């Protein structure tokens, strides 16, 4: 489903060249739950951004469903992000000016053929799954960190994507809340077959997933 061949990411300034990813080769199959671990600055988040089409590699080939991503136009990339991928960010990235419901509806806003009624219905379903159906009219600032992360997961679920990319989804949460979020992701993977790639610092959480990949200084080490 996702195939990375010799993926490189180099950040270049006038004086310094920083290698964030160094010839990464990786395949992730449909329905897998993969966790990526490594120290800060080892390139985990960069990897996730590249898989999620938020950033472009400076070298190598990324393929989605057998087609190189480079061959897609900007519009097609936007379409892929909308239809295929759902993101969960460490710092939630909710839009503070929108209510919980409006935030969760966001991916469907950019999907052709989904009307307002269906949008709301699917957003309610997603909020149900994360146990926040009573908070639809609240604003992000009125929620706890755990609740915000659950809204972010509901937003990723609302679009029913095949792949969920989670960047340290439990990183800002206490252990109890972290367990809850982890259980949610595991259920999603088991029951709906959603492919999940999760970046984490927490080995305990990572060991719950099917496959653990370790990174160090931009390279895959295990």
């Amino acid at each position, binding site marked *: 489903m996702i195939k990375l061949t010799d993926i490189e990411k180099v950040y270049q300034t006038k004086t310094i060249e920083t290698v964030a990813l160094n010839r990464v080769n990786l395949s992730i199959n449909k329905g897998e739950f993969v966790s990526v671990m490594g120290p800060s600055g080892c390139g985990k988040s960069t990897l996730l*951004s590249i898989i*999620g*089409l*938020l*950033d*472009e590699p400076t070298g190598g080939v990324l393929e989605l469903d057998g087609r190189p991503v480079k061959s897609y136009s*900007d*519009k097609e990339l*936007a*379409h892929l*992000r*909308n*239809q295929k991928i*759902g*993101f969960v*960010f460490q710092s939630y*990235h*909710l*839009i503070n*000016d*929108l209510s919980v419901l*409006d935030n969760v*509806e*966001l*991916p469907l*806003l*950019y*999907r052709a053929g989904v009307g307002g009624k269906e949008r709301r219905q699917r957003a309610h379903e997603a909020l149900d799954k994360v146990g926040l159906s009573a908070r639809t009219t609240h604003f992000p600032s009125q929620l706890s960190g755990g609740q915000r992360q659950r809204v972010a997961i509901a*937003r990723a679920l609302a*679009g029913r994507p095949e792949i969920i990319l989670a960047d340290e989804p439990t990183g800002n949460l206490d252990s109890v809340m972290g367990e809850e979020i982890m259980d949610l992701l595991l259920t999603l993977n088991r029951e709906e077959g959603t492919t999940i790639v999760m970046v984490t610092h927490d080995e305990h959480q990572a060991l719950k997933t099917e496959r653990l990949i370790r990174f160090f200084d931009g390279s895959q080490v295990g």
Partner: protein
Amino acid sequence: MLLSYLKIAWKVLLRRKFFTFISLFGISFTLMVLLVIVAMADNAQGAHAPESRIKRMAFITFISQRFKDGGQMNTPPSPYFLEKYVRPMKTPEKMSFYSMFHATPSYVGNKKLELDLKFTDNFFWEVFDFNFLEGKPYNANDLRDANRVVVISETTAREYFGVAKGVVGRTIEVDQSKFRVIGVVSDVPVLRFNSYAEVWAPMTTTKADLRNPELGGEYFAAILAPEGTDLAAIDAEYQQVLKHVVNPNPEVKSLNTHADGLLATFTRQFLGQGESKSDQVTLFYFIVFGLALLFMSLPALNLVNINLSRIMERSSEIGVRKAFGATSTTLVGQFLIENIFLTLLGAMVGLLLAYGALEFISDSSFIPYAQLTLNLRVFAWALLAAVFFGVLSGVYPAFKMSRVQPIQALKGGTN
């Protein structure tokens, strides 16, 4: 989707109240000034009584005589010239000759009134459509017999007689002569200098010599064409007529004059020095449009600046939207809609300000008898200008924003 954009736009406006106020003030104030100018232009040039048929009207307001020694004289034509050469023209449906207005003293008891007096022919009342409050206009017989009768404006009736109605048949002293009032009409704005006066009298009652064979004088001609499209044909016939004019002054080398639409009577005079073959209306529109653009670009630039800083603030939101599938085009659309929303709000405030300003000008004697109003046309202009503002100030920031990589936006940068 639109509702979601508007919700966000409203929240963003409320979030930075001071900047919102500055933006709105810039837009509103600029629009107010533009609206006042448009209302004044509409008052002077639009189709309003007594010039509701202005689109079918041509005017001869000056003749330019170039002398053999290189000198030039621009004056209105004389009644002699108009009667002899213009009256026999075939293309016009109707035509009227009338003098420029000039202030004449008049006394009511010990009170001195300055009344603007205009001498006209009897066709004046057919070419222009005055609103008669009472009485009637003078006719061909009054002209022939030089009857001392006048039509006066409502304000003149009030100021001279103390009442606006019931003054027909009474005597008024104007230009050191006594006249009988035979009609009262609604006031005419002074900007309508062709039809404007406070007292209108038959031209045969003037003390000036109407038979003086000089070509220059102080009379104008208003010509009513059968259709608006016939104005060019009228000027063409007039140009033919001019070829047969015998100038009593042997020092005059050439004669240049046109039968022009109302706007062209100004533009040919001021932009073409009276001699241009073109009526200069296009040039005039270019200049006006250019000045308006320049004037509007100041608040627009201010908005561009504010919008750019708003982008920095909303970088994370832009990143999230991109991450969940928003295309660059969708985001540009969203930002433009937000901006147009802001400028439409500014337009509403601007309309209110303009309404107040127009009321103030109309009530003051700054422009006598000006009836400046916010009509539908002016309102449409305001909306158009507001949308123009919105697009002008939103395009560059929106374009810049749409180029940002999603990951950069999420990290809070725009480069």
